[in-house]
C-alpha cells in the first residue's frame, strides 16, 4: 500500500497501518533526533513523543499527500522543545569524543579516508555544535533526511529562500571548520592537514 493509503487507514484508527507508516520513518527519525541533540538517550524519547503526537493528531491532517512534511514538522518541533528543556542539563554523552587530540598528520583531504577515521564523529559533532538550532536542523533535514528545499520550507514554515540562505550559511561555517581542521583546503592545493 502506498503512503497516502496508509495515512488514510491511520486516520481511521488502523493500528497496523500506523505501524507500517511510522515504521518506514522510524530509523531516520531517531537518527535525525540523535544528530540534532547529540544524545542517544534523548533521541528515542523525542521520537516517542513525536509519534504519540502524530497518532493523536493524524485525523487533523487534511491532505494525506503532505504527510512527510507534517511528520517532520512535529518531529522538529518536538526535538527543539526537548533540546531547549535539556539545555541546562547537559549530558556527559554530549561531550564524548570532545577530547581533542592532534589529527593524524598523514591525513589528506581524501573524504573516504576521513570518514573512516574515528575522528569523523568528533568532527561532525564539533561542526554541528557551531551551528544554531535552525541551521543545524536545516542541514540535518537536507543532508541526512534527504528533504528537498521545498519540503524543508514546509516543515519549518519558512520561505524556500530562507532555507537556501540557511544552507549556504551552514555550508560556509562547516567549510571554515573543515579548513581549520585541515580536511579541506581554502582554495589551494592541499595534501595534508595543517
Amino acid at each position, binding site marked *: 500500500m502506498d503512503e497516502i493509503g496508509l495515512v488514510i487507514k491511520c486516520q481511521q484508527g488502523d493500528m497496523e497501518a500506523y505501524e507500517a507508516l511510522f515504521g518506514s520513518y522510524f530509523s531516520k*527519525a531517531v537518527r535525525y533526533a540523535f544528530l540534532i541533540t547529540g544524545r542517544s538517550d534523548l533521541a528515542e524519547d523525542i521520537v516517542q513523543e513525536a509519534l504519540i503526537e502524530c497518532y493523536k493528531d493524524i485525523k487533523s491532517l487534511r491532505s494525506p499527500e503532505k504527510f512527510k512534511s507534517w511528520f517532520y514538522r512535529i518531529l522538529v518541533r518536538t526535538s527543539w522543545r526537548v533540546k531547549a528543556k535539556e539545555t541546562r542539563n547537559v549530558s556527559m554523552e554530549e561531550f564524548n569524543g570532545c577530547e581533542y587530540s592532534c589529527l593524524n598528520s598523514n591525513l589528506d583531504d581524501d573524504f573516504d579516508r576521513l570518514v573512516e577515521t574515528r575522528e569523523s*564523529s568528533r568532527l561532525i559533532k564539533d561542526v554541528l555544535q557551531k551551528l544554531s538550532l535552525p541551521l543545524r536542523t536545516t542541514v540535518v533535514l537536507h543532508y*541526512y533526511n534527504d528533504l528537498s528545499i521545498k519540503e524543508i520550507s514546509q516543515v519549518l514554515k519558512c520561505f524556500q529562500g530562507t532555507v537556501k540562505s540557511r544552507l549556504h550559511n551552514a555550508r560556509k561555517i562547516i567549510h571554515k571548520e573543515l579548513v581549520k581542521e585541515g580536511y579541506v583546503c581554502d582554495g589551494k592545493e592541499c595534501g595534508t592537514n595543517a
Partner: protein
Amino acid sequence: MHDKEKIDDMIRGLLDKEALNIEPREEIIGEIGIKVKNMEQDSKLKCIVKNNIFPMKLNIRGYVAAALLLFVMAPGFTLIFSKEARVVAAHGIDAVKSWIYIMTKTEDGYKPVKVELIDDAGELDMSYDYTGLTDEELSREAGFNIHVPSELWGGYKCVQKTKGVRKSDNAIVSATAMYDNKNNTIGLRISMDNYINALQNKKEFDIKGTKFYWGEADADSIYPNHDMRQIPVGVKINHELLWEYRGAFYRLYSVHEDITYDAAQKIAEHFMNNISNTYDKNYDAGVIRSQSHISKDATTAEIENEVGFKVKVPESLPGNFNIAYKIVGMDPMNKSCNMFKGEYNNGEKTLNLIITEANWPVMEYDRVKDAKDDSRIIEVEGVECHWTYSDGSHVLGWMDNDVYYLIGYEKGDFGSIDEAVAIAKSIIGNG
C-alpha cells in the same frame, strides 16, 4: 569535483556515518501503539469523570439526581451515551478514585492494565446535548447527512437523540440516538469518523447497494462483583454494525446483549427498507410534552390517565410521610416515556418516589466499590428489589407491572435497609 559538491558530499557522509552511532529499536513502534491505546482509554476516563457526565447504567444516584432535577427544572444538561461512557460505567458525579483496572489487547491477548485517574485531567472538548432539531436541520448544521431512524429491527424504539458538539469551534460532529426495547438498549452514532477498518474479524454484506460491516469492536472488562478496582477476570467481546450512508458513517452498538451477525443483517435490512421513517416524526407521540404539578388530591386513576400506565401511589408512607406534591411529565432521561414523581414529607426529610415506564438502570453495573457499598438484590413481598449504594447513599428500585419504581431521600440516606424495605412494602402492597 566542484568545491560545493565536495563539501556537500562530505557533510552528507559525515552525517550518515555519525547517525550509525545510534541503533534505533524497532520494537518502540509497537510499544508506542500500546501506550497510545492506554492513553486514549485513560484520557477518556479522565475526561468523562472530570465532566460529570451521567451515562445510562452509571452512578444510579447521579442518574436519579439528574432525573429529579430535570423533572422539576427546565431541561438543559449534558448526557453522553456512547462507547466511551460504557468504558467508565462506574464514574458518576463525584466517584473520582485514583485508579481502576481495564483490559488492554496485546499480542498475547487481553491483559489487565492499571489505569490512573487524575482529578486535574483536562476538559473534554465535547458536549452531548439533547436536541430537538430535525434530521434535516441537524444535517444542515453539521454539514453532513444525518438520518436517525424512528425504530430499529427487534422492537427497538428511538428514545433519545443527542448532538455531539465540539466546544472549541462549536461544530456538530456527531448525532447519537438511543434505542430501547425494554430488554436491551442500542446506541447509534452518526459522524464523519470512519471506524470500519478498526473492526476486527469483520464480515461484509450488501443491502440495496449499501455495504454493511459487522465485526468485533472494543471488549468490555469483566470485573469480579462489578468492582473496577479488582483485576478483571476476562473480557466480553462486543460486535458492532457499521456502514456508510449518504456520505456519513453509522456505528451501531449494543449495551447489554451482543449484536449477532443474524441480527446485524436484519437491522441493516430494516434500516434500508424504512429510510423515510425518522425519529422526528414519531418520538414524542403520546408523551406529556411539559411537566406539571397536578393536584395533591389527584386520585390514582387521574394520575394513570395522565401518564398512561398503572401506578401505585399511597397517600402516606411509613415514617409519618405524607404526600406533598404530585408531578407528571416526560421522563427526562427517555423522551418517549412518561414519569410520575411523588414528593413525601414528614416535617424533617423529603422522600421521593419515582415511577417511570422507561427502562431505568439496575444495580449490576461496573463501578469503583468502596467499603460502604452493600448493594444487593433483596425480595420484598415477592418482588425483586435492587438495593443500590452510590455516592454516599442508597436507593431502592423495583419493577412492578412493567413500570419502574424507585425511592430515595432528596438529601441524606436511609437509616437502614429495613427502613427502605418498610416503605417499599407499603407501596407494593398498595392498591
